[in-house]
Structures are given as C-alpha cells and as structure tokens.
C-alpha cells in the first residue's frame, strides 16, 4: 500500500473524528440546570435521581480506608433499593475524578460521595457545574463558602486514636511507638498527636516516631518504613495508610505490637494486636442519603463541614476488639477516657497542649473546637519527626 493512500485515509478519518467532536461540541450546554432530571417535582439538589455514586482512591478491598467506604456503600444498596449504587475504584486525585463523577451523573446519580481527601477540588468543580446534584466529600474541609449542594463529613477519628494511644502507652516496654503515615494532612497530624497524647496520659516517657511514605498505598515503601522504625527499638507500630497489611505483618514478624487503622486486622497479628480505630460508615451514610432524598439537604448540618464524635454520638469510628496484650486495668483506663471524651468539654487536646518546638499550642484549660483540630499544622511534644518533609 502506498504511503500516500494510507496517509490520506488516516487523515480523513482524523478530520472526520474531529469534525464530529467539534460539531457536537457546538451544541453544548455545559452542565447547569437539571439536565436529565425527569422534570421531577422538586428543585432541591440531590432529589429525583436514580443512583448514588461513590468514588474511591484505591481498591475496594484494601483492608482499609476504601474497603470501609465500600462496606458503607453496600449498606446504602440495602437501605435504598430504589437507588442504584455505582462505585468507582482507583480514581486518582486529579481531573480524572471529575470525569468519573460526570459519568455517574449521566447514569442518573444525583448524590455523589467523593471519598478521598484529595478529591475535594474535583468535587467542588462538579458541584458548581451541577447545582442539581449533591456532592459530599469525605475527610477534607471546605474553607471557602460552602455551595448549597456541597458538604464535607468526617468523624473525629483522632478520638479512638487517643484511646488506642492509651493502650499503646501501657503496652510498650521501650517507650517508643512508631507511626507510618502518607502525607502530613491535618487529619493525619491530629491522629498522630492524639495517639501520642493518649500514650503520654498513662506513660509520660512514651514518644512517637513518625515516618512518611508519601503514598496512600505503596507496600514496598511501607515495609522499608516499618523496618526503619523497628530497628530504632519501636515496639508498637500504628499507621495512617490506605492499605494496612504490610506494616502489621512486618511488626508481627519482628515480635512488635500493632494498633490497627481502618479495619479490624487482628487476624493478621494474633500475637501483637492491641486494638485499633475501625470505621462503620453505614449509619452516617444512610442518614446523609435520607436527608438528601427527602429534599432537606440545603441548610442541613451536612451542607457544611460536618463532624461527628463521641460527644455527638454515632461516631463512625469504633474501637476494634482488644488483643491479648491489653489487660483489665488498661481497658478500665480506656473506658474512663472514653467517658471523658463524651462530655461537652472532653477532647484529646484539652490545654495545655505543648507543640514539638516547646511553644504552647493550646492554652491551659482551653478545649479546641472540631474545626481547630481539623486545622492542626504542628506535632505535639513527644512526637519525633519533622513536619515539612
């Protein structure tokens, strides 16, 4: 075949394709007022849809964060048989997230859960383009004005991490605790600080050494991080990673103890399991979806940066079952602390809170609000590791 004919054919094809693309573009009406909503009775955002979408940053069966989201979406499937539940895994935290959400909207979704911290930008963009769709984001905070069809929600995961810190502080023999984390986002910083303060509350000598992997899930880097911590004499390891198996097994193999995160992984560490913060999104997801389909979203507590903790009840985080290493005295101490956190002035960060550099971060007697904890940008004293790494 001559180069010329082939080139001609390919070129014509390309131009045709482009023409199709551009001509169909010219008829555009990008987003905006109620595209496919079958003229439903109400103009409330999020109503009249046939589906609910969930986007996740990792695989739905990661023994961790995304699995918890998926389990929550399964509850929605059961509770709302009329709504189709569409899930998308491994959605990166860039423009692809917006594209995936758009596709879900096209398939009838009027409610979208964007469940990773880094999905916020895309979620805001989609919400602005589709005022008829409610987009809610898990774990981040909107610092600008919250659109009437947006919101963020999260639980005070640092509270159970504080309780787990108590267990870790009691269990450690070397007084060195290890923390493997991904990125220094406020959520993670609050967890690390709460864990260290929980440990300090029962063991003033306890310190928490931190190592970041710069990835939500890179098992080989996790192994390397765990090895480094263990060789420093750490005997309790916990983590803020989406996939948690590698770190737990590395600790167990070296005879160290583990505090879990996201999921009950006691089966992975029969000897060293202490406890962990475990998610139970079902009830909160159900309530959010119910509020939206009832047309009551705008102005509701979910149309904001919603936070739920021990004092508001229904914390989506529960403490995982205790392992063998936790004795009765420790369990009692945890119960006492939990009762304290459930009071109006209870918090892991009741002042004085002293930051790593010795400055006073929270004045004596002061109780920081949820929002203040969400903005935490310092490590407390006793945490080893630099934040800006």
């Amino acid at each position, binding site marked *: 075949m001559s180069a010329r004919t082939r080139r001609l054919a390919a070129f014509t094809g390309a131009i045709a394709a482009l023409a199709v693309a551009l001509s*169909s573009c010219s008829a555009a009406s990008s987003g905006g007022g109620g595209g496919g909503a079958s003229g439903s009775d109400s103009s409330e955002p999020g109503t009249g849809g046939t589906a609910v979408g969930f986007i996740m940053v990792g695989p739905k069966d990661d023994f961790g964060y995304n699995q918890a989201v998926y389990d929550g979406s399964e509850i929605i499937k059961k509770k709302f048989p009329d709504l189709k539940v569409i899930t998308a895994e491994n959605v990166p935290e*860039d423009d692809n997230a917006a594209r995936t959400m758009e596709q879900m909207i096209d398939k009838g979704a009027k409610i979208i859960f964007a469940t990773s911290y880094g999905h916020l930008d895309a979620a805001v963009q989609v919400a602005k383009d589709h005022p008829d769709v409610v987009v809610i984001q898990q774990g981040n905070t909107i610092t600008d004005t919250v659109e009437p069809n947006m919101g963020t929600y999260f639980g005070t995961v640092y509270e159970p991490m504080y309780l787990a810190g108590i267990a870790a502080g009691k269990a450690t023999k070397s007084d060195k605790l290890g923390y493997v984390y991904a990125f220094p986002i406020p959520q993670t910083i609050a967890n690390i600080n709460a864990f260290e303060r929980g440990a300090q509350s029962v063991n003033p000598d306890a310190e928490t050494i931190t190592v970041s992997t710069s990835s939500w899930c890179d098992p080989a880097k996790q192994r390397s991080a765990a090895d480094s911590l263990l060789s420093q004499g750490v005997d309790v390891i916990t983590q803020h990673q989406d996939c948690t198996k590698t770190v737990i097994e590395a600790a167990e193999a070296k005879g160290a103890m583990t505090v879990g995160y996201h999921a009950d992984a006691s089966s992975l560490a029969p000897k060293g399991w202490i406890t962990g913060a475990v998610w139970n999104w079902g009830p909160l997801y159900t309530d959010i979806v119910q509020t939206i389909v009832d047309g009551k979203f705008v102005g509701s507590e979910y149309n904001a940066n919603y936070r739920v903790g021990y004092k508001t009840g229904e914390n989506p985080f529960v403490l995982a079952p205790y392992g063998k290493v936790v004795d009765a005295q420790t369990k009692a101490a945890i119960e006492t602390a939990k009762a304290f956190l459930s009071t109006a002035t209870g918090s892991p960060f009741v002042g004085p809170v002293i930051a790593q550099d010795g400055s006073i971060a929270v004045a004596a007697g002061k109780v920081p609000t949820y929002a203040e904890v969400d903005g935490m940008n310092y490590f407390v004293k006793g945490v080893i590791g630099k934040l800006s790494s």
Partner: protein
Amino acid sequence: MTTTLPAPRSEAPLPVAPPEAPASDRGARLAQATVRWIAALGGAFLIFSALLISKNANPLTVYTDAWNSTFARQQSIEDIVIKMAPFVLAALAVVVPARAGMANVGGEGQVIIGAVAACGTAMAVGDALPGVTVMVLMMLAGMVAGALWAGIAGAMRLLLKVNEAVTTLLLNYVALDVLLFLIYQPWRADPTGQPATKELQTAAKLPLLAGTTVNVGIVIAVIAVVLVWIALSFTTWGFSLSVVGGNAEAARRAGLPVAKLLLSALLVGGALAGLAGMVHFAGVEYKLRPGFGAQIGYTAFLASWLARHKPIPVLLACFVFAALTVAGDSLQLDAGLPAATVNILTGLILIAVLGWTTSTRKANS
C-alpha cells in the same frame, strides 16, 4: 484545512521512501494491508472478549455500553478531545526525532519538565501581567524547558556518543523526582495537606472553545501537526532529517551537518513535548500534583508507532488512545470491571498492530 491534504507529496518523493508501486499493484497491496489490519484488530478484540467471558462479563454488553457512553455522549467526546491534545503534541515529539532515526523515549519527562517550567513561570509573574501574556510566557517556558531537557540527551549523544534512547528514558525519572521534590517543598501551596502547587490564576488558564468544556489545547495540537507535517515533508530541514535517518554515514559523506541535524530534531521534539506539558497544566490540571501527566509520554510514544511516525495519522492514533481511556470509565461504571482493564485492550491492539500489520522485512526500518 484543505491545504494540508497530502497531494503534493507525490511530486516530491523522498529518496528514502520506497519507490511508488505501479497502480495495478497498489490496489492489491491496499486490499492486502486492509485485510491485515482487520484481522489483527479482530484478533485483539477476540482475545479481549475471551478475557471478559473469563470474568463472567458479556462482551457484547460491555462493548455496547462502552460505545454508548463513549461516543453517544457529548461530554465523553469532549473529554476525548481534551485528553487527545497533550497526546498529539507528545507524539509529535517522537515523530520528529524518529525521522532522523532517533528514538525519543523521554516524552514522559519532557512533558513533566514543560509543565514544571510553565507552572514556575506562572508563579514567578503572578497576577502582575494580563492572562494572555502569562499564557504566551508559559508556552515559551514549557517549550524551552522541554527542548533543554531533550537537549541533555542530545548533548550526551553528540559529545559522548551515549545513545539518546537510554538517556531520555533515564531522564524521565529524574524529571519525575524534580516535580515531586518541588511540590513537596519549595512550591507547595500549603505546608499541611496533600502536596500540590497553588492553582493557576484564572486569567492564565487556557480558554475554552465556545460552548464546550474543551480547551484550546486541541487547536494548538492540530496546528502543530500541520506545521510538523509541512516541515518534515516540504523543507530542506525535513528532507535532510530523512536522509540522516536513512543512512547517517551516507549523509555525512554527502556533506550534511549530521550532528546539528540530530540535535535539532531532538530539540524540536523536546519543545513539542514541553508544550504538551504546558497544555495539560494550563488547560486541564491547573496544579502540579504527584501523578501529574503520568503516562502521557509513554502513550504518545506508542501512538507515534501506531501512526508509523507520520504526523497526520498521529491525530487518529491519539484519538484512539484518548477514546480508550474514556471507554475505560464505562468498563468500570457499567460492567464493574477494574478501570485499568482497558489497558489490556490497549496492549492487545498494540501487539496486533506492531506484530501483524506489516511484513517482518520492513517492520524494523
């Protein structure tokens, strides 16, 4: 557009091109090639169908859903066109050096460096200048940075005789680490939170084509295709590159400045890839993030091969790759398959085209 029709090409045949076959032969060969392509692509789809069946997915449903949500939906088509623009530019970055017989495997890194330069420029000038000026500066910065990045490989080839395929490949990872280093520390917008740069000022974002979500990147890409096609087919420079690509030794003996030609091809290639990075940054992402531009360079490298390193077919090849990416969404949302499943189809199609659409005799030339 009509001026770009390849008609004049036959009047100025390149010496390295195979001699034109007599017309009678041509029809037969065209038919043969068509059969080859259909058989190869059919095979790829057949194997993919078998894999789908192995996962209890009905191939017919999967293909229908994918087709409908990819081509029967305006937003999807716009998405394809948006995705296509950086692919096309980065593929041209392979086409130009390939004409001189060089393999630029470094598109991945040149795209990133182009975006880094564009972002750095936007941060440096801030809001002081009008948006259009910032855009032009970003474009220039992206192209210069991409060219310099490729130029490292060019210099190593000319001065040290180190092959460019090796160096461009290595430089990809250096570029990636440069990007990550910058967004983790010096350029980080927020000391806490996930690492990313500040969002590009609104005025400097690439404008959209009227009434669509498509940025002007595609227009830049199409213009680049036409310019590259003209440069390669109708200029002395393009002609000389083909001679060098055909036989560098003979070119040297004929008195062509081989070193300069090789370097210029790599620089132009790098500039095009840098431009791709700028378009992706200022047209789509607006921020540098850890996964920025991932696989644009490699996808474009393969697109260029699919198009046999010819500028105009590159448009079609990139359209196919962009469409496959968008179709991947449907595999996940409709069929519940992992999103990366579409990579299997991409791989199978490439294997079919690379291995079975040309006779083995000329495939490697």
